[in-house]
C-alpha cells in the first residue's frame, strides 16, 4: 500500500447485492417460452415458424429503431422485447398473412410500450396491444384457423401467409376451428386430453396447455413469476365454469374444458403475469387474477366472441394501478389487519 493509499470506489450501502438482474429475469421468461414455441412449429409447421419469426423480428426492429430515433441507447438487449415478440407471435393464428403479423408487432411495441416510455412504464402488455389491434383491424383473418398436424405442414405454407399487403387473403385447404368456436357455434366439446396435449386448432402457441404449465412452474420456482396470478385466474374460471355447468349443462361446458381451451393457459401464465402491468402486492395479484377470470367467463359465455382472454387481461391491466392504489401493504407498527 503506498502512502496515499489505493483508489477507493465510494458507494452507499448496501455494498452487496443478490445478483438478480432484469435481463436475467427476462431471458428466463424467453427460455420458458421456447418449448411452447417449439411445439407451435411442430403442430403447425412452416406457417407457425414464419409467423413467430416475423413477429419476433418486427418487435425487435421496432424497439431498436424507436430507441435510435429517440437518440437513446437501444434496449433490445434487456430481452423484454424478445418476450413480447414471442408471446405476440404465439397468440396469432398460424396462417395469418405475414404483413399483418409485422403490422401488429410494430403497433404493439410502438403504441403499447415505447409510447409509454419503454420497459417499466407500459400500462398494458404490449403483445396483447398488438394482438388487439389486429383483432380490430382484421377480424376475419384473425378467426381463420388451420388444422393442427397437417401432413404437409413442413413442406407447404398456406396460401394466406404470403398475401400481399392490403389484399384479401385467400384460404385454401381444410380450415380448422378452435375448440371454443366448436362449442360456441356447434355445441361440440373437445376431449380434455387433446386440449392438454395441444392436438387442436387455435393460435400457434395456445394449444398445448401442458407445456405452458411446465414453463410457468419453472418461472414460479425461480421467483420470476407470481404464481398467485395464474392460480387466481384459473381458480376463478374453474369456479364460475363449474357453477354454470352445474346449473345448466347443455348451455355451459364443464370446468375442465373452460380451463384448458383457448388462450386461457397462455394468457394466465405468460400474459397476465407481465410484472409491469400487474399489481405489486400479493393480495392485489389475487384480486387482479380473479377479475381476469371473471371477465374471461363473462365474455366466453355471453359475449359475441368465443374467446375473451385478451380483452380480459387488457382490462385488468388498466385496473391494476388502481388495485395498487387501494391495496398498499400494511406498514409495520400501524395496527394489525
Amino acid at each position, binding site marked *: 500500500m503506498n502512502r496515499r493509499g489505493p483508489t477507493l470506489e465510494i458507494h452507499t*450501502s*448496501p455494498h*452487496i447485492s443478490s445478483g438478480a438482474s*432484469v435481463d436475467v429475469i427476462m431471458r428466463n421468461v424467453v427460455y420458458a417460452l421456447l418449448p411452447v414455441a417449439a411445439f407451435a412449429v411442430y403442430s403447425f409447421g412452416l406457417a407457425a415458424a414464419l409467423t413467430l419469426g416475423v413477429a419476433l423480428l418486427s418487435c425487435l426492429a421496432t424497439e431498436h429503431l424507436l430507441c435510435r430515433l429517440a437518440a437513446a441507447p437501444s434496449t433490445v438487449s434487456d430481452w423484454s422485447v424478445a418476450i413480447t415478440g414471442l408471446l405476440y407471435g404465439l397468440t396469432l393464428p398460424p396462417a395469418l398473412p405475414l404483413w399483418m403479423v409485422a403490422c401488429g408487432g410494430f403497433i404493439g411495441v410502438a403504441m403499447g410500450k415505447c409510447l409509454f416510455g419503454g420497459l417499466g412504464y407500459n400500462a398494458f402488455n404490449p403483445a396483447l396491444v398488438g394482438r388487439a389491434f389486429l383483432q380490430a383491424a382484421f377480424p376475419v383473418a384473425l378467426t381463420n384457423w388451420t388444422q393442427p398436424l397437417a401432413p404437409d405442414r413442413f413442406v407447404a405454407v398456406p396460401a394466406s401467409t404470403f398475401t400481399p399487403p392490403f389484399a384479401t387473403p385467400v384460404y385454401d385447404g381444410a380450415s380448422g376451428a378452435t375448440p371454443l368456436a366448436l362449442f360456441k357455434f356447434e355445441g361440440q366439446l373437445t376431449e380434455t386430453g387433446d386440449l392438454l396435449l395441444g392436438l387442436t386448432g387455435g393460435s400457434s402457441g395456445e394449444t398445448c396447455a401442458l407445456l405452458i404449465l411446465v414453463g410457468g412452474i419453472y418461472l414460479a420456482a425461480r421467483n420470476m413469476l407470481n404464481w398467485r396470478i395464474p392460480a387466481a385466474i384459473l381458480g376463478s374460471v374453474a369456479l364460475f365454469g363449474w357453477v354454470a355447468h352445474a346449473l345448466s349443462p347443455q348451455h355451459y361446458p364443464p370446468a375442465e374444458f373452460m380451463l384448458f381451451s383457448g388462450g386461457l393457459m397462455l394468457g394466465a401464465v405468460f400474459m397476465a403475469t407481465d410484472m409491469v402491468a400487474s399489481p405489486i402486492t400479493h393480495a392485489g395479484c389475487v384480486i387482479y387474477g380473479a377479475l381476469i377470470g371473471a371477465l374471461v367467463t363473462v365474455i366466453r359465455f355471453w359475449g359475441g366472441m368465443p374467446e375473451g382472454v385478451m380483452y380480459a387481461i387488457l382490462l385488468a391491466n388498466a385496473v391494476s394501478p388502481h388495485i395498487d392504489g387501494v391495496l398498499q401493504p400494511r*406498514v*409495520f*407498527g400501524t395496527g394489525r389487519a
Partner: protein
Amino acid sequence: MLSVLRHQPGFAHGVHPPEAKEDTRDLRIKQFPFAPVMIVPLLQHTGRPALPVVREAQEVMRGQLLAEPDGDMSVAMHAPATGVIQRIALAPGVSGRMAPAIFLQPFPGSSQEVAEGIPCELHSATPEEILQAIQNAGIVGLGGAAFPTHVKLRVPADRTIDTLIVNGVECEPYLTTDHRVMVEQQGDIFTGIRYLLKATGAGRAMIAVEGNKREVANSLAAALPADLPASVHVVPVKYPQGAEKMLIRALLDREVPSGGLPSDVDVVTVNVATCAEIGRLLPHGRGIQERVITIGGPGIRKKGNYRIPIGTPLRFALEYASMDERVSRVFLGGPMMGQALSSLDIPITKGTSGFIAFTETRTAARHEFPCIHCAYCVDACPLFLNPSQLGQLAKAGQYERMADEYHLLDCFECGSCSYVCPAHIPLVQRFRAAKAQIRKRRAAS
C-alpha cells in the same frame, strides 16, 4: 420455571445474503497493538461532543478520563493508552468532515495497566446510579448505532419495562464480533444483564442468538447462572433479524408502533457486546477505551476479531491486518448497512463494529434498469413499506408524499430492498436523500 433454550419463528420478509462468517468466527479475540498516535474524537456517539478535561502535554494513564459528558445526550471519553496528550485539534471523521479530537501519543515502554475508578456496586446502586455509571463509562450502542446507552435504558415515566432483550443476532454478513463476545465473555454478559435488569426494572432477560450460532446458544444456555431470570432464544438466520423491531416481533410477537420506541411495547433491547462491556467495566469503575471489531473481507489477509484501542487510525489497523493493495472498496460495519469510506485517515470509534475490504469493483456490472414492478423489494422490506413506489416518488421529487402516505420515515435503511432489486435502482440512497430533504424542509418551516 423458565426453559433456557427456545427456538422462535422469525419476522416476515427479509433477505438471505451470504453469511461470509466462516473466515473469522472461530478466531479468538486478539489484543491489537498501540498505534504511534491515537486520535480520540470528542463526538463518537449520537448527541453532543464530550468536553475535554485534559490539556496539551499532560500525561495520562490508560483508562483515565479524557473528556466528560456535556449534558445528558453525551458520554465520557477515556484514554486508550498510557501516554501524553499531543494536542486537541481537528481531525477527519467518517463523514469526511473535520471534528475536534484528542491526539494521544502512547509511551512505548509503559506497562499499559488500566486505571481503576469508583466501582458501581450492583447490590447497593439505584437504577439512576447505574445509568450514571454507564454514562460515565462512556458506553454507547456497540452494534453500530453508537446511541448513548444510558439514554436508551431510561424508562419513560409513564411506562414499565417487562423484558430486556440482549441482542446477539449479528445478522450482518462478515461480522463476528458479537459471536466471539458470546463465546469468550459469557461471565461479563451475565453480569451486564444483572446491571441492566436492575437499571430498567425488567423482570426477565432474553438473549437472542441466530440459528447459525447454535453452539453459542447452547453454551450460553448451559452457563446461565441459576439465579439469573434469563433465557436463550434461537431465531432463524435472516437479514435484518438483528434490527430491534424485527427481534421484538420475533421473540415477543409485539409490534413497535410506527415512529415509536421499544419502550412503547415494554421492552428494552441492548446489543450483547454493549451488555458485556457494562458487565466488564462497571464493577471496576472503568471507562470504555477499546472495543471488539472484525477486520475481514476478501481484501484483508490477516482477517480476525480484534480488541482494538478506540482512536486507532484506520490506516495503522489495516497495515497491521495486511490489506491487499488491490482493494477497491472499503466500509465500516457490515456490507448491508456499513458506511463507505473515501479515506483511510480516520480513527476507529466506539460505533465501529467492523472493517470490511473488497477487491472487486462493481461500477461496471451495475447497469440501472427502470423499475419493472417485480415486487422483490416489497417482499423483502421488513417494515412492509413499498420501496418500489417510494423509489418512483423519490425520482419525481415528491418527498412529502413519501413521508405522509408511504411512511418513508419508518425506513431504517436496512438495505434489503436495494439488495434484491433486479433493476439495480439505488433505492436506499434515494431514501436517504429524500429524508434529508424532508428534515431540511421541516426544520425550515
